[in-house]
């Protein structure tokens, strides 16, 4: 008897946890719907761009500040433009995103902003969206098949290339000549498009500008791996005098802390300062640039990408663009240095903390 009671209690506990997790899964849409309700007045004010048309903002993940800001900006800007916005997060799972797309098609949405989890895996879903006759714009990443109005992404090769240029420029300020540069490259995940392209751009830049990359180590976009790689690289090559981080969102804190651990953390201009240039331009890195610990960052055009994605949908709905135009709206990074770190058009200065 006692056993049965215990068992029943246990099942109840599990059911409660399951309940919470389901709530967790749906909370992102719940939240945005609430917000939509709050913004009801704004919506009626935004009649001119399509009344309360239903827009789905479908993100591959919200796991770092950049993509989080990008998604939130698309949601916010969509509302400003008068859409009834629902926000989806696929948590980097292609299966999850595919079924979210099915749901969105079935629930009669008028337009979709899609940040695909994977170029191949999401092609089928994009073709389903095409069959349903719903205009879609891509955000952050592309797909291999299927039609879309426009692809709104950061030019990742350019982000890497600009990083190489900044390494040289910042090193000169530090009194290090190009030929004396010994650079550690902390790569992103090489199976992701952005990770691969940034590395390509950076290595191409290194070749053209003529500096040496002594070590290119993988971090898989993981802070802990970036920390470990920094310790190991400086152990193997103590004469490293510059570090390129393929993403500051996941690497800036760990690189700074690893240098601090090794007692190699010096401010810009000080003797022995290791030049650090990053890609992304998160609020954290802007602070480091202001504090003089990081030299420069290639800021992703998050706001322009998000707004572009929504604007191209509006154009498609208004008949100004074809739904299958497949426009390549690749946007170049903005360089952040101590000179312009306060600029409020940088996405990193527009994140609520």
């Amino acid at each position: 008897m006692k056993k049965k009671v215990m068992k029943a209690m246990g099942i109840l506990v599990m059911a409660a946890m399951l309940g919470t997790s389901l709530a967790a899964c749906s909370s992102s849409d719940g939240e945005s719907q609430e917000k939509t309700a709050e913004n009801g007045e704004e919506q009626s004010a935004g009649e001119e761009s399509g009344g309360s048309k239903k827009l789905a903002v479908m993100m591959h993940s919200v796991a770092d500040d950049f993509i989080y800001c990008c998604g939130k900006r698309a949601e916010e800007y969509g509302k400003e433009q008068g859409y009834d916005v629902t926000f989806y997060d696929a948590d980097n799972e292609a299966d999850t995103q595919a079924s979210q797309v099915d749901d969105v098609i079935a629930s009669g949405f008028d337009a979709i902003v899609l940040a695909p989890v994977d170029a191949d895996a999401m092609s089928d879903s994009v073709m389903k969206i095409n069959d349903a006759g719903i205009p879609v714009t891509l955000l952050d990443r592309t797909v291999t098949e299927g039609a879309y109005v426009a692809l709104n992404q950061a030019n990742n090769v350019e982000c890497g290339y600009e990083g190489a240029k900044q390494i040289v420029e910042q090193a000169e300020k530090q009194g290090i000549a190009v030929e004396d540069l010994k650079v550690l490259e902390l790569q992103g995940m090489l199976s992701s498009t952005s990770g691969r392209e940034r590395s390509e751009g950076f290595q191409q830049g290194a070749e053209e500008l003529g500096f040496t990359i002594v070590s290119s180590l993988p971090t898989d976009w993981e802070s802990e791996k970036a920390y470990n790689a920094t310790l190991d690289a400086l152990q193997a090559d103590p004469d490293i005098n510059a570090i390129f981080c393929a993403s500051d969102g996941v690497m800036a804190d760990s690189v700074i802390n690893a240098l601090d651990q090794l007692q190699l953390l010096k401010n810009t201009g000080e003797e022995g300062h290791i030049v650090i240039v990053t890609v992304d331009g998160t609020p954290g890195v802007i602070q480091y640039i202001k504090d003089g610990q990081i030299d420069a960052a290639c800021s992703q055009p998050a706001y322009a990408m998000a707004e572009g994605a929504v604007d191209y949908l509006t154009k498609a709905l208004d008949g100004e663009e074809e739904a299958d135009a497949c426009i390549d709206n690749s946007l170049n990074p903005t360089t952040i240095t101590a000179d312009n770190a306060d600029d409020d058009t940088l996405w990193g200065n527009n994140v609520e903390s």
Partner: protein
Amino acid sequence: MAVKTKTGEHSARDVFLKYGIYFILLFIVIVLAVTSPSFRTVTNLTNVLLQVTTYGCLGIGMTFVILTGGIDVSVGGIMVCAGSVYVILSQAGMAEGLNIFMIFIVALIFGVVNGYAVAYIGMPPFLVTLATQCIGRGMSLVFTGGASYRDLGATFEFLGKTKLLGISIQIWVMLLLFAVGYFLLHKTVYGRKLTAVGGNLNAARVSGINDRLITCSAYIVMSLLCAVAAYLTMARLGSYYSAMGDGIEFMVIAAVVIGGTSMSGGSGTIIGTLAGTILIGIINNALNLFHVGAEWQDVAKGAIIFLAVLFDAIKNKAKTSD
């Protein structure tokens, strides 16, 4: 005569199976020390120990769980969920001490749920902890929206940057935990009961051991170590990030199994886990020191896990054939 030779071979094999990990570790250390000048320095040794603090803490708890014949794949989920609760509470302006306490409370809730579901309801440990891992990771996103946070607080600064005798305090904490784990597992009645439950459940029951409570406790110990691991990781890296602990369970399980703990339960040591953890740390370290690229690093890590499981299988076969 022939029989005698056979037992002779047997014991040599037994010795290798029992202490093989130490031979392998020693061999790899010697090879690396000879071939790489940057490997054989004190700084590098402390680098490796610092790099494995997370694996080490989790490995102690995982040894307890695997000894009972179970498995816990929820560790990364517990870490990130406990960390995210800390972050939102401190963003809300609550006191640091209380928030750190909450890291442990959140982890404890996960431990109790895992332990209860496995020990009292009889749910399969792999699936239970897979489910709680998803819940933990999901909840962390609910709390933080996936954003990362820095400037965590004074105690994080202290735990991340303080050195004792020239060695990071993180390493001392890990070694202290290994000492406590060693004492609990090998010097107390509780430790003997834990091993007995995983070794032969029926015999343990007959001898009056409350096997359910013992099994449940292993998951609770594991979860509390997840809290410590989250605290240390956030302090070391100077930030909370939403991918914290992602996929870490496999390397931790591999370290424990390489260290000689049997996946089927009932046999294993804390010292073995420490050796397995350091072995994995050294391999990761060497891959970076030798500038090995991303692709081969993954291959190497896959090979480590494969060898760990192979080793375990050979050992089990030896056990059953005896």
